[in-house]
């Protein structure tokens, strides 16, 4: 049985403990995972980078956490997320919340479909204890288990 969490965050959507040279590469890695999971085309990855170029690093919404995303468009094939954990944190230019060690990529077909899974993620990341567990979790399955708890 595929759970909702597996549907939106399948194994292909994870890249754990990888290096990125800068914020653009960090977003590109999260976009690559969205493509690999069948959620987006490569055009969406470029759109996510352009969102930061146009609107600034507001996507760094909490210390160490960037939510890379763009608008619903033809480049979004299915709603889903990706999870890129960086071995070396990178600067996005956000003075409150730099440097970033976790990039969550989000592709949404609309404003509604991903709300439930986003609530689960918000619940987990707002808990210091769960946040620490997520930093140390060895596998995609372990991360999903923490998010679902």
């Amino acid at each position, binding site marked *: 049985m595929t759970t909702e969490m597996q549907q939106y965050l399948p194994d292909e959507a994870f890249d754990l403990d990888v290096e990125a040279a800068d914020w653009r590469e960090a977003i590109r890695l999260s976009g690559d995972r969205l493509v690999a999971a069948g959620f987006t085309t490569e055009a969406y990855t470029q759109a996510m980078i352009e969102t930061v170029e146009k609107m*600034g690093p507001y996507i760094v919404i*909490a210390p160490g956490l960037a939510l890379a*995303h763009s608008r*619903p468009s033809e480049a979004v094939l299915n709603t889903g997320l990706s999870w890129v954990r960086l071995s070396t944190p990178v600067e996005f230019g956000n003075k409150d919340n730099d440097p970033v060690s976790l990039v969550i990529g989000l592709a*949404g077909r609309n404003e509604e479909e991903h*709300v439930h899974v986003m609530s689960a993620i918000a*619940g987990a990341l707002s808990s210091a204890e769960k946040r620490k567990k997520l930093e140390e979790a060895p596998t995609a399955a372990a991360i999903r288990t923490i998010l679902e708890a």
Partner: protein
Amino acid sequence: MDILCVCGNGIGTSVLLKANVEQVASQLDMDVNVSTADIGTAPGTAVTQDLVLTSAQLAPELEGVSTPVRVVHNFMDLNEIQQVLEDAE
């Protein structure tokens, strides 16, 4: 209280913020109705709201909106969100 969470595209960070605002409000036993908007439509939508929440980077784009605009620096910090809600009451 009607609260509008604003982000660049209206589907990402504002949705996460809405989830945490609803969680804090329920802990405080506050009656809130939370919606989301992108920065383009937010000034129009804000008129009917009691409070607008957004990030430090986007707040300057909401200058001139008559509804109180409050910045949340850490969208995952429930204590910060609680402080903002209590100040707004």
